[in-house]
């Protein structure tokens, strides 16, 4: 992790986005007080994590990738454990856990062993344990990896509700498309911060447009268009080709003509919204696809 600086505001979902090894987990760990930085400071909810970890820890919550659920404890016992560690009074705990369990649709599972819950429910339980003490900041490390899309939606809905209460949510993900769900995003690559902005601004930054060509023979399309002018990157998808270009309308017409001339079959060429992945690739490979890794 190199010279990382950023700020997250209350009521915001901030995404740390990047592939494995980009430094997301390291950053979150330092913020959570689980790892000490070599240089620099981290302030969470007004507390310097290095100098007053106990103070900071009361106001934050950390949900690591392998969440700290005890499989041989019931849902209630897990919640109680974390509540006690955070000094939540019994009355508060009962009120809050009731609310959270209801929101997660897990009220009838209170007495079940955590080990016997489905993947999506374990995640929700982890979140409940992380929220029981009403933290001001919550740090999530890749919370939705491998979880089915329905649970993922539920999870994000809870996160959005949290922001309405003024909680700052800092979440990391390797899925570039999940970055679109965040209010602001920091793109990380190999320990460096590439960009930090809202998804919309980031895409505008790309300054380019994206065309999608649907075709039964994507390889031929690629062959034809590979060396055409104005292309920053071209990638094969299952049913076509995805191209980042400098001028959408101009190139669209050009490519159409080219393909027709070479008699390459295609269904259509459309303009599509750029994905954050396009920005990432563009930024990392300096405008053209290079050797990579």
């Amino acid at each position, binding site marked *: 992790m190199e010279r990382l600086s950023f700020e997250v505001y209350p009521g915001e*979902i901030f995404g740390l986005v*990047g*592939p*494995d*090894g*980009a430094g997301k987990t390291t950053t979150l760990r330092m913020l959570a007080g689980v790892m000490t930085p070599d240089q620099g400071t981290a302030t969470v909810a007004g507390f310097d994590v290095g100098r007053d970890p106990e103070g900071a820890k009361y106001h934050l919550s950390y949900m690591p990738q392998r969440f700290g659920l005890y499989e041989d404890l019931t849902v209630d016992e897990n919640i109680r454990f974390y509540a006690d560690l955070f000094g939540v009074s019994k009355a508060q705990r009962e009120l809050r856990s009731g609310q959270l369990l209801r929101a*997660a*649709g897990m009220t009838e*599972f209170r007495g079940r062993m955590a080990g016997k819950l*489905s*993947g*999506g*429910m374990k995640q*929700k339980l982890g979140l409940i344990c992380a929220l029981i003490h009403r933290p001001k900041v919550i740090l999530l490390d890749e919370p939705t990896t*491998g*979880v*089915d*899309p*329905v*649970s*993922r*939606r*539920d999870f*994000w*809905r809870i996160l*959005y509700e949290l922001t*309405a209460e003024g909680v700052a949510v800092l979440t990391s993900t*390797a*899925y*570039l*498309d999940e970055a*679109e*769900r*965040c*209010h602001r995003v920091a793109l990380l*690559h190999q320990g460096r911060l590439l960009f930090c902005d*809202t*998804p*919309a601004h980031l895409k505008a930054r790309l300054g380019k447009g994206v065309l999608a060509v*649907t075709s039964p023979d*994507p*390889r031929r399309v690629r062959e034809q268009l590979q060396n055409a002018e104005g292309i920053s990157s071209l*990638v*094969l*998808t*299952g*049913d*076509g080709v995805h191209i980042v270009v400098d001028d959408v309308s101009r190139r669209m017409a050009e490519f159409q003509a080219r393909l027709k001339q070479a008699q390459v079959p295609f269904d259509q060429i459309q303009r*599509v*919204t750029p994905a954050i*992945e396009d920005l*990432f*690739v563009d930024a*990392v*490979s300096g405008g053209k*696809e*290079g*050797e*990579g*890794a």
Partner: protein
Amino acid sequence: MNTADRSVLIDSLVKRFGDFTAVDHISLETRRGEIFGFLGPNGAGKSTTIRVLCGLLRPTSGRATVAGFDVAREPESVRQHIGYMSQKFSLYNDLKVIENLRLFAGLYNVPRDLVDERIAWALEMANLKGKEARMTGTLPSGWKQRLALGCAVLHRPPIIFLDEPTSGVDPISRRQFWDLIHQMAAEGVTVFVTTHYMEEAEYCNRLAMIYRGKMVALGTPTELKQKSMKGELLLIECEPLGVAVETLQGGPGVLDAAVFGNALHVLVPNAGVGTAQLQAYLVAHEVQVSKIEPIRPSLEDVFVALTSEREGRKEPV
């Protein structure tokens, strides 16, 4: 499609562990040279199905044929004709690149006189020439991925199974990897990929969506996006978001509404009609609308539409 072309054929496959049904009557066929995706969240039954297809697990009922061999009756033959690349790459980190290659050449019984040639080919394909002496554990994940692929195809199998091949790998390496896959497919190798990452499925020619052991959809990515959604998706940017999403829950023609970052994704039967209707509706409820436009649904939208319908949205997952 004649029999020789049907590289993988699955017919009503069922696999149970005790009273838990991991694979529930799955049927499909793949073509030679096709990149076929098996898409679904963790625990849906993908890995179990792959293991059955590789001859590592016996089916409870139903049949599966891989490269012409029945997986239940001739698992050994099946294994000789397939390549398998598993999650997180199954390479030995404390072996050098060349040592891993030699190991797998041996395990896959590559004939002695062809070993060197194949290894050279694999190194070339994976762009690892000159790096033979590197310790595998020190390689960046993109390289490990390509090495793992190389190791899985030393014996030039007609079919390869890739189990979550690009988890956590950076997008550039991922694209290069998929380039390789497309190359192999062009040469006639059938590629069977499993992934929980919906967007990765876009790289596949055809897909099957798996949920809780059952196949809920089958088709090309475009087909799935067009036919599986019961309506069209609108992107709405407005203020205040919280109020808007609440209001829309009962709105005219609204099939589903969810917050997505700084905007809303709303499902309506018809985009044209919906746009006008919702614009008026929201304004009437004191919501400032800055943008409404139709967007293409993602595969995730498709998945949610198919699975939440099935479960009736009542049972927590």
